[in-house]
């Protein structure tokens, strides 16, 4: 049996320009983007159709806090690409270190989001009371669920990296978790703009 037989993991050996894993992740991200766009579309349509958008007594969102959360996700995207760069060079210590930094960024983001939600709920914001509250909690909650799953996914990859599972030649799972994490960052960029920055008047 020839050792050069094409394998599923080696796109160079087949006519495909990418691995099945990468295609699968992009198909997932494409369908996930449809889910997010559905929620974002619902938010936009509700906001345009509802006057006034903010009901009397509804609290105002804290821009400085969420700007900090945005900066945090951008930083975690950088640590993620640094993790991948270390994986490509076969530097296990660097890979684990940057994956841990990315996980820390995700955990701090979730902590800040929990703080924000608690503050807003205590200030009277409710998903049942107005479209303003309902769309806010759905959209940011759906994104927060993605950050949570991203942190869990990263933790699994980090554990495997610590055990020496990945090499300079074989580190596809690190690239795939990176795609997911950057997608989460990209979606937050859009949510931050439409939910927090666009003024009512």
């Amino acid at each position: 049996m020839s050792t050069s037989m094409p394998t599923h993991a080696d796109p160079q050996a087949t006519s495909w320009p990418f691995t099945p894993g990468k295609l699968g992740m992009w198909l997932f991200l494409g369908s996930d983007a449809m889910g997010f766009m559905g929620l974002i579309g619902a938010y936009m349509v509700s906001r345009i159709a509802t006057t006034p958008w903010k009901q009397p007594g509804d609290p105002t969102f804290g821009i400085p806090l969420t700007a900090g959360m945005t900066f945090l996700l951008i930083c975690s995207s950088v640590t993620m690409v640094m993790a991948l760069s270390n994986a490509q060079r076969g530097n296990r210590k660097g890979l684990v270190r940057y994956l841990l930094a990315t996980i820390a960024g995700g955990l701090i983001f979730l902590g800040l989001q929990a703080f924000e939600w608690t503050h807003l709920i205590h200030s009277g914001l409710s998903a049942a009371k107005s479209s303003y509250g309902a769309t806010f909690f759905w959209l940011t909650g759906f994104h927060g669920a993605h950050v949570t799953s991203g942190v869990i996914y990263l933790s699994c990859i980090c554990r495997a990296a610590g055990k020496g599972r990945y090499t300079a030649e074989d580190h596809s799972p690190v690239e795939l978790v990176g795609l997911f994490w950057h997608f989460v960052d990209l979606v937050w960029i859009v949510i931050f703009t439409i939910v927090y920055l666009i003024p009512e008047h």
Partner: protein
Amino acid sequence: MSGHATIRTYLRIFVLLAVLTLVELAVPPVGHGLGLWKSVTVTLLGVLAAWKASYVGLYYMHLKYETKLLWGVIGLPLFLVLVMVIGFLPDALH
């Protein structure tokens, strides 16, 4: 993938994203101060968000170095959703 982008490129993109975020934060108060129409402020914010998102997609997700086939895999669902949102907008405007 890829691997075409260097660490220097990644760090440059990071600085750019941070600067664009600061500009975004300044747009609503400056627009209000200058008496700009809301539509102008919203357009500016939309352009800045699209700019930032495109850098994350192109460089951090390595789309800049991917094949057209992969672009099609991603582009088709996004196009369909855009059609859906545009389809619903007339209802909202009524």
